[in-house]
């Protein structure tokens, strides 16, 4: 299981939780697992998110690996100038 940290604003969409445990080995599985566990997160994830895995911000690639002991944070997707 991977512990996924949500930003505080998502708590209301995840039954008040700011950490969710998901069975996942990739970033894509993290995101699909989050929606399966908390369907209210679908819109936020569809709007665009990045996933920080062990400090590395993954903006797009769903195939990036995630280990059970990885530090995983959901973040809003970067748009730069």
């Amino acid at each position, binding site marked *: 299981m991977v512990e996924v*940290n949500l*930003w*505080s*604003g*998502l708590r*209301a*969409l995840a039954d008040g939780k700011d950490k969710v445990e998901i069975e996942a080995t990739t970033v894509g599985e993290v995101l699909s697992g989050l929606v399966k566990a908390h369907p*209210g997160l679908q*819109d*936020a994830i569809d*709007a665009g998110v990045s996933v*920080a895995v*062990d*400090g*590395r*911000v*993954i*903006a*797009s*690639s769903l195939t*990036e690996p995630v280990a059970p002991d990885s*530090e995983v*944070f959901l*973040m*809003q997707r*970067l*748009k*730069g*100038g």
Partner: protein
Amino acid sequence: MALDNTKSTGFTHVGTTPDRPDGVDKVTGRARFGADITAPGMLHAAIVRSPHAHARIKRIDTSKAEALAGVKGVVTRADFATGLTGENWNILENVMAGDTALYDGHAVAAVAATSSLIARDAAKLVVVEYEPLPHVTDVDKAMAADAPVIREGAADTSVPKGLHPNVVRYHESGHGDVEAGFAEADLVVEDHFKTEATHQGYIEPHACLGTLGGDGKGELWCCTQGHWNVQKICAALLGLETANLRVTASEIGGGFGGKTAVFIEPVALALARKTNKPVKLVMPRADVFKATGPTASTSMDIKIGMKKDGTITAAQGTFRLQGGAFPGAPCEFTAMCAFAPYALKNVRQVGYDVMSNRPKQAAYRAPGSPMAAFAVESVIDELCNRLDLDPIETRLKNASKKGTKASFGPTFDRIGLVETLEAAKAHPHYCAPLKPGQGRGISCGFWFNHGGETAVSLALSEDGTAQLAVGTPDIGGSRASMALMAAEELGIPYENIRVTIADTATLGYNEVSHGSRVTYASGLATIQAARDAVKKLCGRAAAKWGIPEDAVKWENGCAVPSGPNAGDFDPLPIAEITKRMGATGGPIVGHFEATPEGAGVSFATHIVDAEVDPETGKTSVVRYTVVQDAGKAIHPTYVEGQFQGGAAQGIGWALNEEYIYGEDGRLQNALFLDYRIPVASDLPMIDTVIVEVPNPGHPYGVRGVGETSICPPLAAIANAVSAAAGVRLRQLPMSPPRILEALEQQRNG
């Protein structure tokens, strides 16, 4: 793709500063910018824009315009796709109003004619009947209970119940217990700050030329930071198949984030489709101000607690961003960047994205971060002043480093903030004496940087030279950096590599040139494509020598046998291989297509000396030093240019630039005459120090540099001006009237 320790030192080409490959084109006028493109029989377009801040469009009568000699077509919203949703709908609504004009300058119709003069005259003949509606342009007023609603139902699911419908997105993050942290502090400072919207100020206005036939196939030339994005959006807004629209990026006369968006391109294509002629559309400067994408304006509350020894015990920020009449103001990045330079046990940040009757904001170098730094670093400066602490030592005491849990959550890998602070402390500027009336300001700044979808192709020519096709428009010297990296890998001269910005039909999808991603991501892709080509070159040499491919290595532009059993062969230069490539297996091309995900975050520290004239309120920046972590500077003078450019734009933002709206909700200063960007005589020599703490996610250690340089200036200048004036400045720009007002308030207690 991780840092390649075998390649991260001892470079031959990387780190040198050859002439820019586009230099001759730029100084001789050969370079073709957006407005330089022409086509036989082309028409010229003009856009009809709303004179109201907010109004219902009751009727549009185009008959008089269409009757004018030379007019070939008029389009309105009815000429675009229907049924769009989400961001595509937002973009279309911004490109061409539907039933409501949402801001002064909002497009409501467009005309194509045989000359630009006729098109402009015809635009005046389009009759639009408006019903004016209440408007709001200030962020705090737009959140108030009695504010007119810009659009019901625009808020997403992140917004807590009970907020005004103009609040359309909400962000909250942090960790620890801020109240407990404030209780531990010896001093808590809480303050309110505001910044006005500014424009990127690119000198080249938006311009494009489009063709679109009845068969749904078209071509578009435009100045943009991302032509694949233009292709995708235009296809959606016009109901086209994406591959049937080929988009070519022109040279670009500045973008800074403002050309990541689409404004006029779908309009030119719609007119082209209607008239069956090529249509050219060039924005007048006033339209650029009124109807492209300035920054968000902000209203911010910051509270920071500190112990007497300088330890920050807690930090809290509320960031309200006005992003125009559509969702999208970067409230989350403002919040996440705000406290990122500091290792904090207790931190909380909240962001609000607020709609108002202004143009849809667009990115501007590190969107949101400069405003956040202005507010946060001003409070840290105030704490240092009141506790009699050295500003750099205090920042060093609290600085984020590898292993720090960032204020926005994740743990930082190797970062270079401490190194920038140490370099700033050691710089002669920091201890230089100040003259009476002068003040010194310090600030740190942070930006994430980005990777993104990237595809490049490197084709070798028969003479051993190379043609590198990349898909990221060159907005800051990237062609030189790409050529240097390719030269490094291929072992051939920099001058033997020609870098071209390919069109959308040539490469796979390339994300926009944004997020300081080009030298990182296209650079990484270039290195990989060159290594792919080298592998093929080695294969041809192996076949010639009759030895295994893995018994050949590449050195100094030649294939050489590798290892004691490979045999004894003379080095085979690249040109010897390529001149026979047609007969030995065909063309040699290296490719790389991927989404690099190792962009390293970046920090900077700026030192500013400012002098304030108490009689006029005029500020002069008398000395400026930028210290920034570049990871690895591929072309150091271009890196310095990015540092200096960020500082120069920051000086304008801090001291003079602002969107000024009248009570009628109309923009009052839509010309450079009234919207004052800094010119050379306003600027001191901007000194630079390049710090190189390698990014673990790039083979050479590159970090993006284009955006971080604009994060600290607003705060560093505000701290310098506040020290010089003897009064804290909390609102940008610090124009002479605002400084005089602050001085007057101070005199009156």
